[in-house]
Structures are given as structure tokens and as C-alpha cells.
């Protein structure tokens, strides 16, 4: 089971600002280990953010995204106390989903 994400969501004007830190190695497939063998690629492929049953962000990621990535975005609407869900799937098919209340 992958480690949990850290999610912070706050109301800014008429939008909600969401900041997420994910725990992931994000191996590019270009790196070699101490024995000289290629470390196989392993990265988050898709990220989805949902609010009130609706998708507010959907992203396709590749190996150029940094290790332990940080994602910040805004969406229109959002009310205090309501929850935002973030989910990712990586290239091995591993999944992680977390949610946070908007503050």
C-alpha cells in the first residue's frame, strides 16, 4: 500500500485552492543502479480530483514529473467543510486515494 498523500484545500474568493504532496519514487526508467542495471520506469500515470461527485481535475503524468510530486490547482466553487478527493494510479497499477475537508 503506497503512503498517504498530504492534501490541503482552502477557499480563496469564489474558488477552492488545493495543494497536494504525493509520496512516490517516480522512476524515469533512465537511471541505473549501483550494479549498472537499468532501474525500471515506475511513475504516477493518472491523477484525478473530484468534488461533489464531479471531476474537477484530470491529468496524465509521465516520467518527467519529480519524485514526491507537489500539485497545486484551483477550481471554481467549493464550500468549507465539504470534501475533495484525490486519486492516482501508477504505471504498475498501484493506486492511492485520499480526501481532505476544505478549510
Amino acid at each position, binding site marked *: 500500500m503506497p*503512503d*498517504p498523500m*498530504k492534501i490541503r484545500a482552502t477557499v480563496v474568493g469564489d474558488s477552492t485552492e488545493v*495543494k497536494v*504532496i504525493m509520496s512516490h519514487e517516480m522512476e524515469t526508467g533512465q537511471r541505473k543502479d549501483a550494479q549498472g542495471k537499468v532501474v525500471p520506469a515506475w511513475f504516477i500515470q493518472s491523477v484525478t480530483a473530484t468534488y461533489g461527485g464531479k471531476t474537477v481535475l484530470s491529468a496524465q503524468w509521465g516520467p518527467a514529473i519529480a*519524485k*514526491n510530486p507537489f500539485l497545486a490547482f484551483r477550481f471554481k466553487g467549493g464550500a468549507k467543510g465539504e470534501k475533495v478527493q484525490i486519486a492516482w494510479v501508477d504505471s504498475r497499477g498501484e493506486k492511492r486515494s485520499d480526501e481532505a475537508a476544505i478549510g
Partner: protein
Amino acid sequence: MSVAFFACAAFAQGSAVDEIAKYRAALQDGNPAELWEARGEALWSAPRGPKNVSLERCDLGLGPGVVKGAYAQLPKYFADADRVQDLETRIVWCMVTLQGFSDADAKKGPFGGPDRKSDIEAFVAYVTAASRGVKMNVSLAAPQEQEMYRLGEKMFYFRGGTHDFACATCHGEDGKRIRLQDLPNLSSVEGARKAYTTWPAYRVSQGELRSFQWRLNDCFRQQRFPELVFTSDASIALTMFLARNANGAAFDAPAIKR
């Protein structure tokens, strides 16, 4: 004349330093150190080891189970261990005495890497984060603590190794740098405060959270000194010297560094 020239030189170097400061500020918002803090917090309260107990009764110097503010008064002398201990040493001690780990097992993997996560670094992140904003208050009341401080001071100025380097060679004057990184002057109060209160830190270039033991270990490597043994008296003495010199400053870590 000399004053004008100095100001000019400081300005020329300032631009690169300012850009690095901007880079750090941009990263500050999403510090992945929080991931280590969360993992450390979960590990702290999880029953582990042969005795299957958590570390929640671990005494970090403010009484069993008190984590908040504990890091700001370390290293210190612990009568139960009859030794001056820094945070990592104390955690290892708790893992051995409370959880029943062997000394070797507790010290296994002090520093994380690409395919191995370090429990110690997670504990360090969790405990140090609970001292954020607390003023550094390291005591030199016990004779053992005074001795450690003196030993640390001696080591700081001791020149050796293939390069005839001391810590003070790079960290004993203002305005020194390695490549574009400005090095803190640890012999000044201001420098020691700024440096000590911003470790541990998440190193972006390594994708890892690094403890103070790691920082000293890597300084020794860069000096071409013999490997600094994890939780050795030598490592605690240097930590003691620097932590005490930072007294009075508000602790502000885990930080984020290039």
C-alpha cells in the same frame, strides 16, 4: 574606498544567492518533509519490535511520551543511559530498551535511499516537527554535557585528513561558499542559529529527508575524514557544540533545501 569595494563584491555574489533563496521560498509551500512526518507519526504509535510496544512511552528528555518541544533541548545527559544523547541516539536507545530490538537492528538503515526507507529519518521528521517554533534551549548543567561541548568544539577546529581540513576551514568565516551554495559561518552565533534550526531538511536533489546525523556524516565524507559512526560520541559532541551555539533561536525545521 575599501568599504565601497566590499559592498560591490557582496552585491555581485548576492544575485546568485538571492536566486537560490527564491528557489527555496518557491519550494517551501509543498515541502515533502510532511510525508516523512506523517510516516514517523504513524510508526511512533505503532506496536513494533520483539516486545510489540510503541514508542509512545519514550522519554526524550521532557518525560515519557512528551514529544512537543523535546528536540529543542537535545542533546542532553540522560541518567538512565548514563550518556549524553542526541535525538537519533535516544530513539535507538528507546527502540532497544522499550521495544526489545537489538542494538544492531535498531541502527539498521539510519539513512534512506532510493529503494529503502529509513524508519529513523521518519521518527526524526516527526519529533523535530513537534518543536517547530520552540526556542532552542540546550543545557550545559551536567558535567557530562560540558565535556561533550568541549569535545565538539575541539573537533570543530581540528584539522586532519588528506585535505588537512577542519569544519572551521569552510564554516569558520562569513561569505564562504561551495560552488553557488553559501556556507554558514558556524563559529558565529547568527550562523550557528540559522544553520542548526533548519536541519533536518528535505533535500530536493536527493528526494530524501535528511537528519542531523546524516548532515555530519556527509560533512565528514566531504572532508575525507574517516566515516563518522552513527550515534557515536564524536557525532553527539559536534551536535552538542552546534546545538548549544544555536540557543535562543526559534527552531524551524524540517526545512527544505536544494
